[in-house]
């Protein structure tokens, strides 16, 4: 496909714990296209942030091992050294972080912090850089940008700070933006504004956005395509409409059922039994979700679950989806 910006193939990212590496991202393959917002959802600890930091190379090299292929523009980012990565980072890939309170250097003025990336990735003059900073600030919807560039982070509200962080991420017009839970720390009204801003920005710049979140509502608002992660793997991937109207993997379906629906008067919410296994105890073979749906017989699972394309663009891991039913309900029959 021509629109592909970023192709990740069989990515493994492992953390060293007591001298062994445990993969927090365990064989993820996914592509990001131009003009697209790709949402990655999943529970806490499933490896979303690890995936993001692997792409942008911000992991701790002493404790982390990244294997596989992250190809961007003919480069395998997974093999890039620090210096070369710095040419990609910021310039080609921008990142937006979760916590706007701590993601800005408290001792630097807003203007400086935005300008920093420009110094290294452009050869704009000082004046030109300042113009660009002002432009960026108004682009992300900050009123009175002239004043804001002289202010310090603590003088801004959470929403404003998140906008500044977005401005930093897009300062060099990157082709890819990775947003790791950009709105989790914000109030709903502000969240809505920030999400709208992201959509507008994308429409303008045509960048591909990877949006990491655990909030399906957010996904529904902005994403074009969704990948659902569980225990380091992608277990389902589909265009957003398809996924929301036709979720297939037992995990995805359970998630949907556990949302307190705005308009459902249901007394009971669906609960997923058991716990997300910790990184060290993660089963490395078989269907990783099987322990949490024990009523589905083992033979319904694949031995080495792979992603099956069940309709164009809709991928589901493991065959268990075909036999899944909620506990207590009657399920489909085995073929």
């Amino acid at each position, binding site marked *: 496909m021509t629109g592909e910006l970023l192709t990740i193939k069989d990515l493994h990212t492992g953390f060293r714990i007591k001298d062994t590496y445990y993969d927090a991202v365990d064989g993820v393959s996914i592509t990001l296209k131009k003009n697209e917002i790709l949402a990655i959802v999943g529970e806490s600890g499933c490896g979303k942030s690890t995936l993001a930091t692997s792409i942008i190379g911000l992991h701790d090299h002493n404790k982390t091992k990244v294997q596989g292929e992250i190809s961007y523009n003919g480069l395998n980012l997974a093999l890039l050294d620090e210096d070369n990565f710095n040419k990609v980072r910021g310039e080609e890939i921008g990142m937006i972080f979760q916590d706007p309170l701590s993601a800005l250097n408290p001792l630097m003025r807003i203007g400086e912090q935005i300008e920093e990336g420009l110094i290294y990735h452009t050869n704009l003059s000082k004046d030109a850089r300042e113009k660009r900073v002002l432009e960026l600030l108004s682009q992300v919807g900050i009123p009175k940008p002239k004043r804001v560039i002289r202010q310090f982070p603590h003088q801004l509200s959470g929403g404003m700070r998140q906008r500044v962080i977005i401005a930093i991420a897009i300062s060099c017009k990157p082709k890819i933006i990775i947003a790791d839970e950009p709105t989790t720390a914000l109030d709903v009204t502000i969240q809505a504004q920030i999400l709208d801003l992201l959509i507008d920005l994308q429409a303008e710049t045509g960048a591909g956005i990877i949006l990491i979140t655990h909030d399906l509502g957010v996904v529904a608002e902005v994403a074009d395509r969704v990948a659902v992660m569980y225990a380091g793997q992608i277990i389902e991937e589909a265009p957003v409409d398809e996924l929301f109207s036709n979720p297939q993997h037992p995990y995805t379906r359970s998630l949907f059922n556990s949302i307190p629906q705005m308009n459902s008067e249901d007394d009971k919410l669906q609960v997923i039994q058991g716990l*997300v296994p910790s990184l060290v105890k993660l089963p490395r073979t078989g269907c990783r979700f099987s322990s949490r749906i024990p009523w589905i017989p083992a033979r319904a699972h694949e031995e080495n679950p792979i992603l099956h394309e069940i309709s164009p663009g809709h991928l589901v891991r493991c065959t268990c989806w075909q036999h899944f039913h909620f506990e207590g309900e009657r399920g489909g029959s085995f073929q």
Partner: protein
Amino acid sequence: MSFMQINDLHVHYPIRGGFFNAVVDNVLAVDGISLEFEKGKTYGLVGESGCGKSTTGKSIIGLEKVTSGSIIYEGEDVTNKSRNRNSSFNKDIQMIFQDANSSLNPRKRVQDIIAEPIRNFLKLSDLEEKRKINELLAIVGMPEDAKLKYAHEFSGGQKQRIGIARAIATNPKLIIADEPVSALDLSVQAQVLNYLKDIQKELGLSYLFISHDLGVVKHMCDHISIMYKGRFVESGNRQDVYQSPQHIYTKRLLSAIPTIEPSTRESRKRERITVEQNYQKEEYQYFDEDGRVFDLYSLSDTHKVAMTTTNKEVIHKVAMTTTNKEVI
């Protein structure tokens, strides 16, 4: 009949400064709210961060000093009463905290955590105490062997359930739940919410359910109050608030909630923008010069909304005439 009333509650935090570190100003964290609790009902408190939700909850249970207003429990004024083991109020009002992690003493075993209120409020023998603990663990769906573990050995949801077990140990009438699920993942959140509902049914509890997630509140609550800068802008039952929001702030809040229907996102965005524009335009009518919310007036038995500049005058006139009449 309500068993507890909160009348015109104010909680102010002093801001110190100036020459001898004197109190120069106050943060009006809670600025005149009233609430009534009935048996077996859940009361929701929603609002943006910093609007005073937690302060409300904490001052009701006595963790914050009430500046003015009163808390009447079963006819008795319990405002700012120092907490002690013997008062029935203290036994009957319990709390679940937002951060399950920090609300459990990391140095204590689960059984000691749960036993704390039992030892303080109920005079039980060791055996009875043990039985009670087992019983409580069973109610929140935890295995018995959890007793000997430490809090950090549990997942977030389990921790929250331990917190719940502790809160219900003394058979309270009201539990103040301060964002009990906002730190939890979806599926775990579902678990906890289910337990809360089950227990309520079983024990006939009331909840003051504090949250910023309108979806959760809607799922849980019978009566909902929307809070803004220490005051209520609107309160009513589920229907009132979600179907016919009156105050501009409520409308804005509702419009901002994402739904899980991707197909409607375009229209919702448009709607959101209109609401926002309206908000910018009409804001002044809903708040006084200091940005303070006006007093509430009743739309129906259940539904109360903060006044606007226009209807404030109307009502004021009405009040004037009625009092005048009486005088005459």
